[in-house]
């Protein structure tokens, strides 16, 4: 790893990219294809006979759309001087580079690499802007691709299909980390293999080409082909990872016998071929004379071949164990009642029907299910200390607007009541009430401190108002003490009065 956390060699690759390399050319070709496909009639494919290749090409063309859209709208976002398309391709390459069977790329790392690459495009740009560009590019790659296209079916009739995919996705690993993985569609943009069949034959072809190039001594070209081989191998690994994951889930739903078993068997056979061809190539590379000129190039090719070989061996093992797991799980299932759980189409089966119901009906349904919206938590019965703190918490939305000050005086209706009394009476009452600041007191004990019925009335008014106060720090709070007042002035429950503590002022730190 380099000092900024980027894997070795990534910066070399980054430089190569920005100097317009084969990947941008590939994108250019695809953009042309995009235009051609659209000129041919907005997604109308194979006019009279089915043509799978054309459909695959249409999809491949569509895949670059989010990046083109970003490129087109960059003016509106103030990113004129950046090249989001290049950054998008770079992002795919970074992610593919870091993808392994059980691991993807760290989103934060990709983000910071992209921000630095954006910084190379526009030297001196603010770091906030660079991050925004990086986020924009990642956001575009994570967006789902959706398109409706038409193609001729076997009888020649024009049929519309809906297709969804995505270039990149974010997944959560078993230990709760988040990672980015590039999809098949994304690697397509880099290497131009169109589907799984294609991928398998492209892998075989690349190894064969590599062999022939090495034999003819064209090591420069061979080195580039070897990089292609690695990208293909990573994409294939991603497909297999999905297949294995699907197999593990399928115990419950998909009929694996019909759908998955043939795929697993094919993958198994393909990987067996790959492993033996690559092992042979690796041997041959070792046997070649490593002179001063060819040595470094041969070493780099050999590294890539070894890397592919290692990955394919791992995949081979994963596919094999997945077949066994499946058989085991099936045996296990046989002893259990099938799970009653049927998964739901939330949008059409729940949200829509709910919107059509009456407020009363739908309200009852959602509030009845309220407990199911989040996970279980202990009931909130706070201790006294926690209760006090919670009560003292300023209300979230109640921040004074500019120029407004919080009025610290009595609530207006209470103020009206109190001001009926003379200033002297009020003063005496507040002096008695001040005793509460030191320790809580009962209303009865406060009333006992005066003979003046008016002073008593003011005390009662203040205590009653404190029974349901706006709870802010320093406010007066009263609770029923459970005993009856025996004072002749008023009847009812005696109250215990507290003064809520004032929190120590925190020093405001100025930056």
């Amino acid at each position, binding site marked *: 790893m380099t000092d900024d956390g980027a894997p070795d060699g990534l910066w070399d690759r980054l430089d190569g990219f920005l100097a317009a390399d084969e990947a941008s050319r590939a994108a250019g070709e695809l953009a042309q294809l995009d235009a051609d496909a659209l000129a041919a009639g907005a997604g109308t494919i194979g006019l009279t006979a089915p043509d799978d290749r054309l459909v695959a090409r249409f999809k491949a063309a569509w895949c670059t759309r989010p990046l083109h859209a970003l490129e087109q709208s960059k003016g509106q976002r103030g990113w004129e001087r950046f090249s989001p398309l290049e950054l998008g391709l770079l992002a795919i390459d970074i992610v593919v580079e870091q993808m392994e069977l059980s691991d993807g790329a760290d989103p934060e790392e990709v983000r910071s690499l992209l921000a630095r690459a954006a910084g190379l495009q526009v030297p001196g740009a603010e770091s906030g802007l660079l991050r925004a560009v990086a*986020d924009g590019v990642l*956001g575009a790659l*994570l967006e789902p691709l959706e398109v409706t296209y038409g193609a001729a079916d076997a009888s020649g009739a024009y049929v519309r299909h809906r297709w969804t995919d995505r270039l990149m*996705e*974010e*997944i*959560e690993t*078993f*230990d*709760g980390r*988040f990672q980015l993985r590039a999809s098949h569609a994304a690697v397509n943009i880099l290497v131009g293999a169109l589907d799984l069949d294609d991928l398998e034959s492209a892998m075989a072809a690349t190894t064969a080409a590599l062999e022939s190039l090495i034999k003819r001594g064209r090591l420069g070209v061979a080195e580039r082909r070897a990089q292609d081989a690695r990208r293909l191998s990573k994409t294939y690994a991603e497909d297999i990872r999905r297949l294995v*994951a699907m197999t593990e*889930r399928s115990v419950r*739903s998909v009929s694996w016998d019909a759908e998955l078993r043939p795929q697993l068997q094919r993958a198994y056979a393909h990987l067996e071929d790959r492993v033996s061809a690559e092992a042979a190539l690796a041997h041959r590379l070792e046997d070649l004379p490593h002179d001063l000129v060819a040595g470094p190039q041969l070493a780099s090719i050999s590294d890539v071949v070894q890397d592919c070989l290692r990955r394919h061996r791992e995949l081979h093992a994963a596919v094999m164990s997945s077949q066994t797991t499946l058989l085991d799980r099936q045996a296990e299932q046989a002893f259990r009642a099938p799970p009653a*759980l*049927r*998964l*739901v*189409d*939330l*949008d*059409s*089966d*729940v*949200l*829509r*029907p*709910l*919107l*059509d*119901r*009456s*407020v*009363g*009906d*739908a*309200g*009852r*349904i*959602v*509030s*009845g*299910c*309220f*407990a*199911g*919206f*989040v*996970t*279980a*938590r*202990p*009931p*909130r019965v706070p201790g006294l200390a926690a209760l006090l703190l919670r009560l003292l918490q300023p209300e979230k*939305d109640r*921040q004074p*607007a*500019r120029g*407004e000050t919080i009025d610290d005086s009595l609530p207006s209706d209470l103020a009206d009541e109190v001001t009926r009394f003379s200033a002297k009476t009020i003063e005496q009452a507040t002096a008695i009430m001040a005793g509460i600041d030191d320790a809580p007191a009962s209303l009865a004990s406060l009333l006992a401190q005066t003979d003046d019925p008016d002073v008593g009335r003011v005390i009662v008014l203040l205590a009653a108002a404190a029974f349901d106060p706006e709870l802010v720090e320093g406010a007066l709070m009263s609770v029923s003490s459970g005993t009856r007042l025996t004072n002749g002035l008023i009847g009812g429950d005696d109250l215990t009065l507290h003064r809520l503590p004032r929190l120590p002022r925190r020093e405001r730190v100025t930056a």
Partner: protein
Amino acid sequence: MSTTDAATLVRFALDRRASSFNDPEHRELRARLGDEGFRVEVHHVADGLGLEVLYAGPSGLLLSARTDSPFAPRLEDYPLTVRSAADRLCHGLIHVAVGALAYPRADDLEDRDRVIRLTVHDVDAHLWQMAERRAEDHAGTDVPVADLTLEPAWAAWKRQRRAGQTQDGRAHPRTTRRWVEVAFDWLVEHDLAQRVGEEGGGTYRLNRAHRALVAEVTSQRLVEALRQADDRVG
């Protein structure tokens, strides 16, 4: 001893600060779930408390409370004031819409690895769009006014304020947009989502626990409640 251990594991699951990553005792108990006998014990303890174990994640158990459990989250604890039947409905609809947007089809609920990102704007716009569409479909039919609880849910949604400011320039607290944000924050508080950015009024990442909860609890209960409501009518 084994019952105490099982109950301790359940206790850890109820305490959001207790991740098995940083507590050796928790980690050790979590590892014992491989033992069938212990697993059964944990299920019994949870069951007695009105809890269902959804799965054992790496940081601990994921528990969902049955409606009658003392551990069930209650509407009173919701961080928004519910003033009317329509308020209650709107808050519920927002949570349903989060699930419906994140996993519209049953297949999406199966794909445990994929992480969903949603923005406040996505959810708010989805509900408004659906309500508008329903309003168009029902153009010309008058909404009953005598009893507001007979009003269709989409119409109640459309009556709400979408966005806005108070007179002194603060964000208005009673807008659907603000409600959606609060709903997401509530998910964050329960470790079901993370806020990851400010785009679209706030971008949130929903995690595996959220998907499991929606797949196995939320959606199942909603469908069952809808079915029961139909039975009452029919």
